[in-house]
């Protein structure tokens, strides 16, 4: 069975027909040629496929495309504007927060989504005081990004990049 759906990806509107079994990730990669969301596990275990859907971070391999009719999605390719890279992207370059680069678009989307969640006051497992707004300690950043695996082991530099971007007030 197939279904028609509309997706806005990185500001561009698309009307596509997909097999109902197609994941949102495969719709982006196979149908729309989007290279930013990556397939690392296809089971929601690695975070490489993370994008921002309505400003929230989403693992696109874990849901079917047909459930996202009308969705507006921003991938790492859609973060940079006319004035250059998104500050989170620049921070990843400055801090050498990646090696092979395969988890990187997902890490960046996840980091942006995470900063927004923290700014909204959402606590994490390591937040001590649930009544207070969480402060972005290293432990908070690590905990909140632990859904994004990096097998090259760039974690130290990713935390540095997220702090750089956060200090620049890009949440």
């Amino acid at each position, binding site marked *: 069975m197939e279904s028609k759906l509309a997706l806005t990806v990185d500001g561009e509107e698309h009307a596509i027909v997909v097999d109902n079994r197609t994941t949102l990730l495969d719709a982006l990669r196979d149908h729309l040629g989007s290279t930013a969301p990556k397939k690392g596990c296809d089971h929601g275990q690695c975070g490489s496929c993370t994008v921002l859907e309505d400003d929230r971070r989403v693992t696109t391999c874990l849901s079917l495309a047909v459930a996202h009719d009308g969705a507006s999605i921003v991938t790492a390719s859609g*973060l940079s504007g006319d004035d250059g890279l998104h500050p989170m992207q620049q921070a990843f370059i400055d801090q*050498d927060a990646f090696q092979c680069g395969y988890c990187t678009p997902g890490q960046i989307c996840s980091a942006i989504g995470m900063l927004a969640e923290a700014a909204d006051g959402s606590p994490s497992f390591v937040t001590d005081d649930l009544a207070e707004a969480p402060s972005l300690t290293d432990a908070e950043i690590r905990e909140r990004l632990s859904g994004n695996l990096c097998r*090259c082991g760039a974690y130290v530099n990713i935390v540095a990049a997220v702090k750089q971007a956060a200090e620049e007030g890009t949440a």
Partner: protein
Amino acid sequence: MTGAIGTSTARVDGIAKVTGTARYAYEHPFTDPVYLYPVQATITRGKIDTFHASAAEEVDGVLAVLSPWNAPRLADISDPELTLLQGPEVKFRGQIIGAVIATTPEIARYAQSLVEVGYAEEEHDTVLRTDHPDRYPEDDPQTIGDDVDQALSDAEIVIDQQYSTPEEHNTPMEPHTSVARWHAEEQHLTLTTATQGPHSVVDTLAPLLGLEPQQLRVVSPHVGGGFGSKAAPHAHDVLAALGAMAVPGRSVKYAITRQQGFVFVGYRSPTQQHLRLGARADGTLTAIDHESFSQVSPVGSFSENASSISASMYAADSRRLVHHLVPLDVPPPHWMRAPGEAPGMFALEVAMDELAVAAGVDPVELRLRNDPPRDPATGNRWTSRRLVDCLHEGARQFGWQDRDPRPGVRRDGEWLVGTGMASATYPHVMMPGTKATIRHNGAGRYTVRTGAADIGTGAWTTLTLISADALGISPDRVTMEIGDSSLPTATVAGGSSGTSSWGSAIVAAAEMFRRQHGEDPDAGAQTTGGVSEDPLAEGYTAASFGAHFVEVRVHPGTGEVRVPRMRGVFSIGRVINPRTVRSQLLGGMVMGVSMALHERSVRDPRFGHVVTQDLASYHVPVHADIEDMDASWLDDSDELATPMGSRGAGEIGIVGSAAAIANAVYHATGLRLRHLPLTPAVLLGD
């Protein structure tokens, strides 16, 4: 030299990677692609009796079903790992025994489930054990110096223990992907694949497929990690090629699933090790006897030789090294970061910590006392052996002095706290054979082309810096081209040899270019040069060294081990790009934490497959597992090793790091643990 080498430089592929526009193998713009999904054996040993594909073939959208009976015949079947679909034999569970090619990935995967396979099943054996009746020594024991048994019986202190490391899988974030297109008229195959060496893929696959090298092009500009598993073509590359030949003119896309990444793309064999150290009362080593065992596949010969690390690491007048192979019904083990060195150094460096305790000598001091002035394996001079400097600098950075050696006495709240250290080493490898082409594009701009691979190492950038200095120009005037077999031939990104091998070729080509074309060449001037032999002089041994220092916290109630602080100091020759080298060293150390605490592929002996075949059950560190960690290096240059003065940096970070953590766990708890990984169950005495 313009000083590009040594300048911290952002990756030239950085913008492409942070915007997700760098194209990995699956992501190139293929016209009208089709999708392949394999059929895998559901027995571990035996023969295929029946292969019924009609139900699959009838599915709308299925273009072809490959089986051992209808697949194209291979021209060269000398490598059993790559001899795919040529007969009914099943040698390991999950072996590729067929494939479905269809117009969509969903159809291919569904149709594959309709293929009915019948087997004549035989008994199998997948358990590594040192008393296995079929075990055999890989080579004669390597005996160096005096009789080791005599030296051990004369020794004042003897450490005599068994160690083991588990089966581990490389699991790069990008699952192996191969996209093949057979151009029937031109009789030409294009393989867009994730590889650590485009030319090595051509060298291996062209004869297999009955092609001349010029009939096969391998494209691989960006690779999502490899850690050895992409250092040679595996079964999936052959399958994509066979699939392409079945549907000429179509791009056949095959991205392995994460689960398939635990089957046929290589892994680190488990090791069992027996180590005996003999020493005088002051800890001076007199004997090293290192015996190791790893498994070997019926369709491969790769050997995880863990004992050879003990040949050159420390001084001792008598030494014996032997490695045994145990043939099992398993997929072929293959390279995984520091193969042999990583598991071998775990055993040696834990044994050294045990010797330090037995002799009452500080672990750093013990290593200083046993530093060999010449390579004990050969009597060679070292080009540069600065382990001692790494130990001193690491101890200084970490604050090791005045360490209380008593185990199990420090508490911070509920947590037991301890510190540990270990040495690191990795041999210098320079592979001759790389060629590079230098072309002047006009206006002082140059293109440098070689078939190297950047698997995350930073080669795109590192080779740009080497080219700039070799040509005496600024790096922004260099355009690198790598990652394609249509470029001049290059050796593989493996054995920490990439920068040494490719960089040496670029330096040689640039010198030749200047000789031929001078400092003010015409636009279009071009020279191809390279290095045909390793410049290391007879009588020298070159190797990198390092030292890891670790603090751990162990929770006695849960058995959890945390690593709040870790420092690595390395001697790796001249550092080409400090920014990317630090990342490589840190990445190796993270993989050492992973080896120590997390990774284990659990192979079920009843069914012969790895049960922990995804990233939920095969554990690697996440952000929350890595805390305060840093890597640094000595101000160094080793021009006897390479013209840049550099040595390899890709693997040394994982060597010794797991031992440093195990030694710190001993210091925290008093538990001497010799079998990885150190999971909570192990800490709680399971």
